[in-house]
């Protein structure tokens, strides 16, 4: 039987751009170009490798986001995923992590899955809680923050490098896995991959398709409220001295002047 892998990806504003909040204090998606969150590329990569190692596998990429989020799906398809699911609905604007996890969980169940793959965090919200939220909602094991992952005989194995220890984890499928940026470099789409991606199916779903009421999501339905966003005063460049043999001494004097030593 085919191994059904669903990779959750996010379309985010480019982290190297000058990101802002919109007037309603949601992420401004207008002023900075969007792309597939870099950290999700690692999840796509590991999903493709697990798929390659299985006798028969199907890799579906799933996103919740505005129309432009199709770009993120297209990128994942051009890397080699088989098909895509795009949950898109105007009522989703402003949905928070809890709401997004509820939408994703419904879409994952509708798609059918043995393995859900996620990146370690998004590069915009950076919460890193979505895989745990999905595991809780789906009622399946969470095998998260893996720097190595493999799937054999219906089991996931992986290495989690925690703050205080390295752990070897094991769980039975179905399961939710997240991988870190240490899990292995993501492949670049080949020209052939990019051409093939144009013909791959992208299924579009809205809230009705998932039996979700509009007031359960969106800004109004959010479980948290951002009340204020203030730009931090930009750090200004201080003194820069050119080392002409006295650099170490000058730095020691600076540190002493600031009472660090």
């Amino acid at each position, binding site marked *: 039987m085919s191994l059904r892998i669903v990779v959750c990806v996010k379309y985010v504003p480019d*982290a190297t751009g000058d*990101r802002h909040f919109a007037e309603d204090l949601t992420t401004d998606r207008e002023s900075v170009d969007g792309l597939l969150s870099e950290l999700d590329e690692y999840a796509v990569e590991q999903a493709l490798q697990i798929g390659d190692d299985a006798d028969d596998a199907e890799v579906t990429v799933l996103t919740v986001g505005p129309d432009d989020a199709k770009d993120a799906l297209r990128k994942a398809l051009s890397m080699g995923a088989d098909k895509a699911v795009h949950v898109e609905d105007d009522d989703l604007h402003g949905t928070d*992590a*809890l709401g997004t996890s509820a939408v994703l969980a419904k879409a994952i169940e509708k798609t059918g899955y043995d393995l859900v793959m996620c990146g370690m965090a998004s590069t*915009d919200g950076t*919460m*890193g*809680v979505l895989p*745990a*939220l999905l595991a*809780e909602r789906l*009622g*399946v*094991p*969470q*095998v*998260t*923050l893996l720097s190595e992952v493999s799937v054999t005989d219906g089991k996931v194995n992986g290495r*989690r490098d*925690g*703050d*205080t*220890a*390295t*752990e*070897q*984890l*094991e*769980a*039975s499928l179905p*399961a939710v896995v997240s991988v*870190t*940026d240490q899990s292995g470099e993501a492949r670049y789409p080949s020209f052939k991959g990019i051409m093939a991606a144009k013909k791959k199916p992208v299924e579009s779903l809205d809230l009705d398709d998932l039996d979700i009421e509009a007031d359960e999501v969106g800004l109004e339905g*959010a*479980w*948290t*409220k*951002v*009340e204020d*966003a*203030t*730009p*931090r005063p930009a*750090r200004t*460049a*201080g*003194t*820069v*001295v*050119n*080392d002409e043999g006295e*650099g*170490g*001494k000058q*730095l*020691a004097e*600076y*540190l002493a002047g*600031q009472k*660090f030593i």
Partner: protein
Amino acid sequence: MAEVLVLVDHVDGAVRKPTLELLTLARRIGDPVAVHLGAGADEAAKTLAEYGAVKVLAADAPEFADYLVVPKVDALQAAYDAVSPAAVLVPSSSEGKEIAARLAVRIGSGIITDAVDLEAGDEGPVASQSAFAAAFTTKSRVSKGTPVITVKPNSAAPEAAPAAGAVEQLSVTFGEKSTGTKVVARTPRESTGRPELTEAAIVVSGGRGVNGAENFHIIESLADSLGAAVGASRAAVDAGWYPHSNQVGQTGKTVSPQLYIATGISGAIQHRAGMQTSKTIVAINKDAEAPIFEVADYGIEGDLFEIAPALIAELAKP
């Protein structure tokens, strides 16, 4: 006064500093009730009481170590049911955030992660967060249910405020999902004897300019002469020169020390995201155009292999 649950981060009863910060912040909202999972509750309770815990709910079971995350969620939920708190505060470690997230789903509450400050508000606690690589500070609150908030290290100066802190046993029934992910082996990270990266007052970091694992001893020596923690940029970690657990930046640790010394680090946005809320930033780099100089309070353009040893020698002078 309402009670506030604080999940304790500890190693066999030795309470880690971020927990003391959480207790300090919790007192702004209500009476802190500490939740201690695993061994060493009696030992930990002394410290927890000193920092304001009115009581310590303790549970110990092999499940906490043998299975990932979920047994601790079951226990924290049991504490929630026992106390009906005004808020739940959890340390912002990767495990802490996962525990908090799952609890939020179960109790039907919103969650805020990575708070850097917390105040009482008319409609519940207001959390400050850094957003978009610390370009913005936001203030948010949980609008549904009991606020579940994870708090970053160094968010407050721990203040002692002695309270009773009596230990009470917490009765926990583990759900059938709690044994889903088995921890088949655990290798504790070897202690370096240096301060924790996220807790240190001074951090010395090395990047691409260190040019090899064999040269990182220079960064370590400089750190040791300042009593500092050692950090590394993603470039240095990806090259295999230093462990990922020491990575500072978007996909590593966020640090906010009094003094951050960036050595041979160009200062890409992903790195700055992890360190630019440091109080004072010093940069040593060969490249005058390196973006790290744009955020540095004091920069030296030059060769780190000359400047760092010279600085170490200066620091060694009586």
